[in-house]
């Protein structure tokens, strides 16, 4: 109805308020808030809560043969640590683990490079992964023992099997998800072959590759401990799995728990120190992951 809208005057504020008028522009967080913002602090708190729960439940259960208390486990843990048995066993396990892990990553890299450069390679990767990924590595152990004997050879073989497929699958899907623009940029620079893979595809697919590496690491740990439990000791120096098995046979249950605790500790350290640092230095810093 009302067609005429009154023309409103333009306005030009004379001056803007200076910062003293705002009061607070930036206020530092309180000490408590800052401490609680650290993931490590929060996780340590959670661990303490879990440990206390364990201790209380074990005391209430009062059956050290089935479920020793946390403090008894810690005692056994430090005893074994002091006597040097546990570090030696852990070192044997870690050595084999690193060998298998490195070899697994090497073969995964080979397979993935074949897969992205040729179509048959892609088919091969997809086929092999769907065949072997669901196959538990431990199921191959009897065969490995026949082929490679009672030694590190068979352990490394099953480790490669447990690492290879997870890493190859993730790396390949990471390569496939690199954006077309970024691929075109790489080719625009005149890069090709391994330089193209190394300088464009691998960094661009790094979030997926990192996931593959983490999964591979966890698979490798599981496989190794399980394998050591099954075939025990070779040439007088068993690993953590053997430590657990041995103590079970002697009904040293707190030591069994101490062995498991060591596996957990190493897992926590690798995940929270090694992989976290790698993540912070790469994908987070690059803004590819928040």
């Amino acid at each position, binding site marked *: 109805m009302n067609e005429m809208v009154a023309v409103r005057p333009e306005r030009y504020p004379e001056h803007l308020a200076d910062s003293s008028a705002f009061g607070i522009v930036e206020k530092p967080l309180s000490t408590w808030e800052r401490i609680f913002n650290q993931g490590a602090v929060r996780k340590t708190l959670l661990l303490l809560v879990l440990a206390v729960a364990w201790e209380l439940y074990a005391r209430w259960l009062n059956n050290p043969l089935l479920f020793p208390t946390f403090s008894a486990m810690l005692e056994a843990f430090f005893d074994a640590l002091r006597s040097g048995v546990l570090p030696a066993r852990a070192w044997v396990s870690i050595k084999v683990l690193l060998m298998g892990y490195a070899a697994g990553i090497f073969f995964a890299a080979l397979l993935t490079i074949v897969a992205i450069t040729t179509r048959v390679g892609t088919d091969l990767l997809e086929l092999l992964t769907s065949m072997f990924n669901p196959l538990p590595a431990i199921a191959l152990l009897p065969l490995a023992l026949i082929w490679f004997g009672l030694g590190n050879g068979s352990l490394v073989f099953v480790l490669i099997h447990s690492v290879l497929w997870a890493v190859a699958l993730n790396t390949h899907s990471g390569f496939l998800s690199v954006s077309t623009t970024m691929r075109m940029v790489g080719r*625009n620079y005149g890069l090709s072959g391994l330089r193209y893979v190394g300088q464009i595809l691998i960094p661009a697919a790094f979030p997926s590759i990192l996931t593959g590496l983490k999964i591979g690491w966890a698979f490798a740990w599981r496989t190794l401990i399980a394998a050591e439990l099954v075939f025990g000791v070779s040439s007088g120096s068993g690993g953590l799995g053997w430590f657990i098995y041995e103590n079970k046979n002697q009904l040293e249950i707190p030591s069994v728990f101490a062995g498991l605790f060591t596996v957990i500790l190493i897992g926590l350290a690798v995940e929270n120190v090694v992989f976290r640092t790698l993540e912070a230095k790469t994908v987070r810093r690059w803004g590819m992951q928040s």
Partner: protein
Amino acid sequence: MASVTEQGAPARAASDVAGAPAAQTPLVDVRGVTLQYKTKDHLVTATFRVDFQVFRSERFILLGPSGCGKSTLLKAVGGYLQPTEGEIRLKGEVVQRPGPDRMMVFQEFDQLLPWKTVKDNVMFPLRATGLSRKVAEQKAMHYIAKVNLTNFAESLPHTLSGGMKQRVAIARGMAMEPDVLLMDEPFAALDALTRRKMQDELLALWDDTKFTVLFVTHSIPEAIKIGSRILLLTPHPGQVKAEINSLPRDTADGDPEALQELERRIHGMLFADAVEEPVQEPQHE
């Protein structure tokens, strides 16, 4: 790679292009280029027998509505796809693969490598073509300064705004001192204010170094503002409708009527057939 100039293409090019400076040979020579690509269940003809020549220091615009194959044409000049008919020559050599003599600036912000700082992003192609670290760094910093990003040389791309990312991409393209800079709607994803600023900056850079640029856009004002010469393409498939000169830069700034007149003319030419040609909607009778 063998030399492929046995037909004497440059000479022929100079003789039959009307208005081309006779003494000069074209830098980019596109002749009868038909481009086709396959989608999952179609063979699409993007452009049909397109001809044009770009000479040194020209700001050559490919203008047309979406679906006229202008981006595909630019990618073909970049060497990313081969024409099914005709040929594309750069300085007399047939274009066969992508290469650092034709640097692309894409529309997407993700064209910068996220794992490299601004400086490293600009340096990377320089290093890849074999320059020493020191020379590459000097050159990179020179062009980063030209796009006013000296203070951000050590920043990582994800910390920059869209306009800044595009400026890095332009610096990266120019630092290579390519024969021709290929720009694929580089400002299309920017907000209007930033876009205008970027256009002005690009022109200032051109005043500075007189680089040759092949620029794809679907905005008529942008084409007139940036371009010295404009190729109009019609859609489905892309064919040359006209090749016109843009306004001189002082006219474009100071004479809004001439500007509007040219805009109207271009608009008329681009959409003249739109009435006759039924858009792909099925007609219910």
